[in-house]
């Protein structure tokens, strides 16, 4: 990276920017695939400022003219933050008469047992702004009571008087017949010019009123802040001369154009984590691994996701603010239900900053309380006094005892050790290294829960996967975690510290539409089904607005055994909906059911179609990325590091380049933005994509 990447390049550059809590990460890709990266501080008062600053810096450094940027890709937490911080729009909800409390009553269940003082999250729309209209559809789309249009006028007046910016409309059974919702939308848009009005049938035309209402409300609630942010960003980029079209990552892994994001901002709520998974899929595939588990270890959380046969898995059981962990899948209610496809990222509250606490009864906990960015771990010397996972890593010699992050963060080794001793080691009668090693084992066990949540809980065996770890702490925990799950290979990609931004470069423009379609699989009317799919496909093509031969269309069907409440999605091949097709769908569903739940039922049991989906992807060629690490020619060095039963070992400190020849652990790979631990019994090497591959050593070399 010492020479600007513009030097030999011609053609289109692509810029990718991911906003994190502390840093905004920027990656610039040259037409031949070479990469340049940078990090600038995030600017929470107006995130657009940091983004523009990062773009300006990297273009200047790499000697690329703003006009040479052909595409700008972006992931941001602006929608999530609006929800988590309660700073979304003043929002109104219009519902069927008798049902305005559906949003607040949720599904009743709470995410905690034995907690009489539990408080559920307040609804995004307070009761006073939830309005009811006389109308009613039946479950088969039959009109049971016509829409009372005149009732909408006083409601619009109240909405106007209350200073409402966004309105969500959700009527019962609108997935089966949207007429009333559409008409109410027309009337309200006419009466409330300039206000954002969104209909559940446009956001999520699927059965289950609470989930549909909540998703539609989220769409309304985040629309004004997302719109303000993107308007400001667009204007800022234009001022810099970056006029390239702007695309945003959606939670499901594809990217979306600006127009769509403005209409359906709920689609981009979890854009950052999705980008990392896309990157992991690309790196894994290139390194020869179709099955990888992506693990992102940050300061407060660890997130795991699965890429299987080159494809990532999605879930639609997400709750904003509730995380997607194994327990939240089981006991919902901790956050705000968002029933849109989200890459299945399972999160646990364990990261470098997680606090380690021992209570009077001798019970030790690691997280979920975190020291956060401030004060941070004791080792960072910013006023932290309670030991964290990072302090345990420092005490064992895993992290550089002088400074990390390219020398920008000084490390207080004595402070880290002292905190582990006083809080954990001394009360347990252990040495500081024994206690630290135990803390690491607990942190790994917690992170293993997130991995299990996307593997064993979905019928997958983690041993069939390679572990691809990134984020600040990925390299510190990866091998220990892999070992605890019986996984035998670990991959640490380059640019691990800006990996989500990197992943954006490999995402594809994608748009999906779904439609509730309740029918028995064996009795569904072929013409009706084909017609519903054709409508969806036409909608997707129209939306993408490109020639049909540049778009790959995929049909999917959500199926269940008649009587079950949960569906599984399977791909539907092209062709007539005949007996052979029904058998093929049933077989694909059975296979997925058996894999996920351990059993399937004989063909005689009826299966039901619940939802039809069409996903359109714009076909695009992406150059192979190329990011050569910078050789530093440092002095050969070692330092003692603690490896449990093996005790303290004098451990070589190497950089990524040194692994061109495979080396056996123990090793510590130090890089500006990450540290990787290779324990004894594991061997590290480098592949031609500059990934560190760490494998269990079969024979210890002499």
């Amino acid at each position, binding site marked *: 990276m010492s020479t600007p990447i513009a030097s030999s390049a011609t053609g289109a550059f692509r810029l990718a920017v991911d906003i994190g809590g502390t840093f905004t990460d920027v990656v610039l890709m040259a037409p031949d695939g070479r990469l340049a990266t940078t990090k600038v501080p995030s600017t929470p008062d107006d995130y657009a400022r940091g983004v523009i600053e990062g773009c300006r810096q990297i273009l200047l450094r790499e000697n690329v003219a703003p006009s040479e940027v052909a595409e700008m890709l972006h992931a941001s937490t602006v929608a999530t933050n609006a929800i988590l911080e309660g700073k979304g729009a003043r929002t109104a909800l219009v519902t069927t008469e008798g049902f305005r409390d559906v949003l607040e009553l949720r599904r009743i269940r709470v995410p905690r047992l034995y907690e009489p003082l539990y408080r559920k999250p307040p609804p995004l729309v307070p009761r006073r702004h939830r309005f009811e209209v006389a109308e009613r559809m039946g479950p088969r789309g039959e009109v049971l009571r016509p829409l009372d249009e005149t009732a909408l006028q006083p409601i619009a007046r109240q909405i106007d008087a209350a200073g409402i910016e966004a309105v969500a409309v959700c009527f019962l*059974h609108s997935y089966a017949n949207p007429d009333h919702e559409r008409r109410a939308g027309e009337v309200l848009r006419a009466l409330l010019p300039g206000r954002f009005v969104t209909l559940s049938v446009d956001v999520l035309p699927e059965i289950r009123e609470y989930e549909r209402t909540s998703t539609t409300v989220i769409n309304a609630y985040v629309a004004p802040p997302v719109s303000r942010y993107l308007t400001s960003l667009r204007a800022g980029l234009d001022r810099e001369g970056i006029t390239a079209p702007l695309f945003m990552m959606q939670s499901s892994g594809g990217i979306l154009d600006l127009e769509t994001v403005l209409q359906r901002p709920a689609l981009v709520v979890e854009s950052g984590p999705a980008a990392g998974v896309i990157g992991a899929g690309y790196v894994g595939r290139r390194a020869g691994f179709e099955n990888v588990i992506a693990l992102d270890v940050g300061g407060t959380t660890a997130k795991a996701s699965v890429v299987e046969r080159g494809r990532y898995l999605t879930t639609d059981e997400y709750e904003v603010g509730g995380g997607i962990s194994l327990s939240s899948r089981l006991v919902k209610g901790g956050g705000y239900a968002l029933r849109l496809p989200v890459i299945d990222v399972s999160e646990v509250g364990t990261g470098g900053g997680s606090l380690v606490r021992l209570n009077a009864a001798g019970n030790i906990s690691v997280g979920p309380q975190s020291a956060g960015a401030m004060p941070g771990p004791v080792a960072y010397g910013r006023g932290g006094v309670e030991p964290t996972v990072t302090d345990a890593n420092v005490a064992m010699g895993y992290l550089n005892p002088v400074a990390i992050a390219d020398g920008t963060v000084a490390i207080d080794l004595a402070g880290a050790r002292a905190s582990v001793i006083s809080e954990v080691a001394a009360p347990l009668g252990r040495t500081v290294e024994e206690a630290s090693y135990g803390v690491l084992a607990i942190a790994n066990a917690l992170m293993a829960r997130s991995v299990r949540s996307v593997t064993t809980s979905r019928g997958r065996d983690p041993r069939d996967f390679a572990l691809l770890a990134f984020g600040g702490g990925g390299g510190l925990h990866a091998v220990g975690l892999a070992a605890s799950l019986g996984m035998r290979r670990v991959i640490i990609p380059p640019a691990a510290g800006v990996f989500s931004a990197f992943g954006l470069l490999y995402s594809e423009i994608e748009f999906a539409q779904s439609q509730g379609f309740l029918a028995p699989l064996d009795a569904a009317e072929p013409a009706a089904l084909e017609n519903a799919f054709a409508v969806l496909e036409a909608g997707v093509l129209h939306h993408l607005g490109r020639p049909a031969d540049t778009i790959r269309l995929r049909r999917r069907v959500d199926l269940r055994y008649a009587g079950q409440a949960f569906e599984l999605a399977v791909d539907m091949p092209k062709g007539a909906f005949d007996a052979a097709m029904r058998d093929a769908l049933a077989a694909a569903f059975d296979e997925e059911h058996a894999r996920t739940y351990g059993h399937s039922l004989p063909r005689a049991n009826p299966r039901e179609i619940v939802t039809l989906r069409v996903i359109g992807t714009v076909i695009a060629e992406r150059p192979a990325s190329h990011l050569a690490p910078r050789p530093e020619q440092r002095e050969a060095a070692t330092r003692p590091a603690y490896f449990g039963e093996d005790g303290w070992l004098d451990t070589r400190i190497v950089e990524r380049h040194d692994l061109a020849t495979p080396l056996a652990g123990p090793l510590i790979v130090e890089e500006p933005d990450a540290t990787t631990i290779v324990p004894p019994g594991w061997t590290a090497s480098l592949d031609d994509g500059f990934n560190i591959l760490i494998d269990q050593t079969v024979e210890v070399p002499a």
Partner: protein
Amino acid sequence: MSDPTARQSGETTDPLLLEVIRNGLDTVADEMALILMRTAYSAIIRDSMDYSTAVCDAEGEIVGQGLTTPMHLGSFHDAMRHLIREYDGDIGDGDIFIGNDPYLASGQHLPDIYIIKPFFHRGRLEGWATTIAHHVDVGGLVPGSNSIGATEIYQEGLRLPFLKLREDGVDDPKIWRIVEANVRVPHLVLGDLRAQVAAAEAGVRGLDELYTRFGADRTRQALADLHDLAERMARHHIAAIPDGVYRFTDHIDGLGDHPEPIVLNVALTVSGDTIIADWEGTAAQVKGGINAPLSFTKSNVYAALRSVMPQEMPNCHGYTRPITVRAPEGTLVNCTLPAPCGARGITGYRIIDCIFGALAPALPDRVTADGAGGSTLPTFAGRLDGKPFVFSECIMGTWGASQDEDGQDGVPHMGSNQSNAPVEMIEAGYPLRIEYYGLVPDTGGVGRRRGGLALRRDYRVLTDDCFLGVRSDKRAFPPHGLFGGGEGTPSMNVVEDGNQRTVLPVLPTVPLTLRRGALFSHVMAGGGGFGNPLEREPERVLDDVLDGRLSREAALRDYAVALDCEGGIDREATRAARAARESVS
């Protein structure tokens, strides 16, 4: 990389390793719960989630539990002891047990069926994967098998002692056929049983991974240490409760058309680090299906006391060691054969409410005023397109207020963390239409902190001759307030058929049949308030009025807060009204 945090077995497990293993156990139990929910067929399991999963040690004591139903979980212990005693020497790898009877299998009531699989590691019995699920029907007098009117358990449906559903890896088709022949909706019940089997198998797989990874001796020792840790933590927290005898009396409204109050009476003796819950003075068992077997009573006492202890305590059986439950035989809370138990859930909820009521003076900042009383289990059954249907759901209400917060609206009773069924799913699958589902204003008990609002759900029947069952309560004895807070409003069940309006008893003992077009309006109780209502901040009262939770009239009547015609607080009038009220009292 081997795990060096571990020490030799025989000595106490390192707390660090213990935490690692504990996480592993809870993960296994959660995975079991997830599989059960996803593959179940009946609404009551898949949507309402009335089931539980746990992993037990070799003695059958819980060491890890799924995030499921507290009132189930504490009873696994007695059921497992029963099973182990009965099958000692005849428990093999590849066996799966089934059972449900309160008397023959230490069960809870007949709809709750246990499916239990032993876990063997290297040929030795090391533990159990256990599941219990509420089945939508097990035969008996009424659809749903929750007949309040049953007078003996023989009328309640299929009774199963512990039997081997599978022996040495081979299913016993006779048991499946007996179940099939005895229930109204066999496709649902058999599907749900299969889901339980799948969950139990997953539990055994998960336990095996743990034992393989950490070694049998070390893991076995860790399970024992986990019980000890939970016991130490429980004792620590009981010791912090001031010593004394705390008493509380509550009532179930009573059975049928002419209900007689049924008294529950508890004396909690806190002495050092132990608690005795003594139910002396509780009513004799009744000729109606609400009697609680002792295992169920214990389970509810444990759950209530667990909930005033810290969250991070391991959910293993060890925490119950400092707790003693005494319940005289032949009473509502320790029934004997042939007392019927079908709707015993209501007694379980009341047991928990009694414990909270008793603890309020000792722990005013840890408990809330009384809530709506738990799931009322509305059940509808009949025939649809020639086939029988049974629909049953767990409707839950609201909580009482706490010292700092208003009562929560639309939350499960502490005893059973269950869900409602989606309106659209009900209407798509059953001949019912939900015409109202929401909160009722002016129903929360008054107080400095207001009780939660009552929940109302109206069901329109769209088929002929529809059976209706319901097990409500809290009409004659509505939820109590605390420290000057008022009662919540009473519950109500009304059937409107044409011009005819019939108020149903809280616990109907004769089967009810609704005609096509009839409307069943089900209103739960409001939550109790906490503290003096005249101390409620007028701004909070105004917010309640603006949100339609409180009428202007009630604001003035109950809180002495006057609102002006612009919808703001009339400060002058409010001051005067409050002063007048205080001088009267």
